[in-house]
């Protein structure tokens, strides 16, 4: 791999042991993936933020590190709201360990935002190179924004944040971003709510696998694209998708619309995902709600009172910027939590049947929460939670 002189010095240990190790990791992974060089990134998002995943040894590894990130770096969602964990009934010992992990990351200069939607907090632009780790964030950045990131592992994303660079391979390279499978839907006029697109992504992702799909005949908005991509990243391993004339790269002259293979998805199959099962709790915000979704939810809940536990998840920064919407939602008895989500928080473990409006949550709730999941639109979620 071709390294800049300063990177060579880092690799030789001239800028301390932590940076040396991090550079060694980037160079090593660069070899694994066949990268010839490192490229600068504008931000990083680090996974392995929950104590549940990294455990005591991951925590000890983090604690031994001594360097600061050089680009804005945030964390993946953790197991609890950092401030309201008691209200979530998180056990004290878990909370204590989780706090230690967060503090170890803070020591490295990482912003204490634990979110799968970092793009709502700082502007991420078309063509920027990133090192992000959470699958739905990766999918949104690549597809909806047209930024470029591979799906990073936790240590690799942290190394990229500390060095400010990442190996140049995979989705950082334009020629690797062309679609390889077309997706057509038989009756796309039935797709209305973000949950419909989430259900579509949930169904389509299974046949797409890790390919790059090209959708035609649908016109999702940003929130619907977010729901669809998150679901495909969960039920498949989609890190980039294109929607004809909607997502930015499809407007490039160099974009290749002739795909070698096409999948047909029937709306009957998508509708089958929806059910009318009774539930014990409702959770929305997977991925974390956008400012628009937060506003919409607050207007739906005005004058209503929840009769079932209703969990709402969003990034701390988004919550802080919309105090009126948040208090309107909480007046109904629903709870708006930051830093965590339905998939990673042990708070949802006590429920057997959970209603969500997310294809991603639908894919993960059975294994991660040990509960049966039902998907519905945001409006249906409000109806079920307040009736």
């Amino acid at each position: 791999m071709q390294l800049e002189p300063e990177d060579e010095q880092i690799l030789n240990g001239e800028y301390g042991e932590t940076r040396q190790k991090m550079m060694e990791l980037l160079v090593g992974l660069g070899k694994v993936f066949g990268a010839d060089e490192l490229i600068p990134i504008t931000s990083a998002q680090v996974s392995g933020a929950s104590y549940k995943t990294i455990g005591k040894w991951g925590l000890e590894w983090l604690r031994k590190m001594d360097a600061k990130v050089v680009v804005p770096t945030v964390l993946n969602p953790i197991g609890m709201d950092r401030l309201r964990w008691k209200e979530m009934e998180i056990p004290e010992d878990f909370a204590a360990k989780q706090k230690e992990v967060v503090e170890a990351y803070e020591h490295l200069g990482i912003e204490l935002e634990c979110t799968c939607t970092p793009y709502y907090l700082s502007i991420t632009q078309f063509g920027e190179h990133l090192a992000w780790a959470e699958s739905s964030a990766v999918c949104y950045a690549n597809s909806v924004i047209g930024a470029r990131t591979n799906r990073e592992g936790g240590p690799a994303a942290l190394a990229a944040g500390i060095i400010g660079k990442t190996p140049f391979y995979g989705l950082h390279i334009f020629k690797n971003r062309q679609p390889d499978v077309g997706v057509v839907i038989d009756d796309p006029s039935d797709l209305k709510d973000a949950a419909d697109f989430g259900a579509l992504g949930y169904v389509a992702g299974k046949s797409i696998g890790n390919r790059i799909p090209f959708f035609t005949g649908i016109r999702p908005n940003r929130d619907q694209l977010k729901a669809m991509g998150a679901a495909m990243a969960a039920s498949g391993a989609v890190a980039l998708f294109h929607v004809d004339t909607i997502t930015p790269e499809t407007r490039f002259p160099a974009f290749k619309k002739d795909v070698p293979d096409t999948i047909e998805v029937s709306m009957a199959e998508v509708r089958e995902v929806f059910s009318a099962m009774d539930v014990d709790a409702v959770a929305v915000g997977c991925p974390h709600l956008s400012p628009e979704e937060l506003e919409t939810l607050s207007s739906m809940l005005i004058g209503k009172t929840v009769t079932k536990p209703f969990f709402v998840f969003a990034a701390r920064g988004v919550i802080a910027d919309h105090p009126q919407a948040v208090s309107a939602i909480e007046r109904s008895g629903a709870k708006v939590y930051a830093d965590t989500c339905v998939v990673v928080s042990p708070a949802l473990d006590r429920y057997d049947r959970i209603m969500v409006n997310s294809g991603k949550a639908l894919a993960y709730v059975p294994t991660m929460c040990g509960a049966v999941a039902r998907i519905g639109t945001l409006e249906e979620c409000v109806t079920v939670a307040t009736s």
Partner: protein
Amino acid sequence: MIVKGRGIAKGSASGKMLVSDAPLSFLSGVDPESGVIIEKGHPLEGRSIAGTVFAFPYGKGSTVGSYVMYALSRNEKAPAAIINIEAEPIIATGAIISGIPMVDHLEVGLSDLPEGAEVTVDGDEGTVAWEA
């Protein structure tokens, strides 16, 4: 005898050669306290990899496996060095953050490595050496 490959994780170390033809997940495949392989049905189930030069095709399973390798090294139960046919991110990351020398892409197959012999892996040079 010196065979060439590609250095993935730096450093040089020696140990007894242990070869497996099965891929391995360190998460739930290796006990971090003892270094013993606990994956059910693995050809080396019940054997310790501590202090060995451990050769296997490639890693599999969860990325948390990287932290298990770190745990092994903190408990002084890690392999002295690792040889893979093809490095992938989980094992590469684990070896690098744990300071375990690692090479891949050897010019010989795993079955050509001298099981049980004292072997030296040089992760900077990307070589494996033993007395033939």
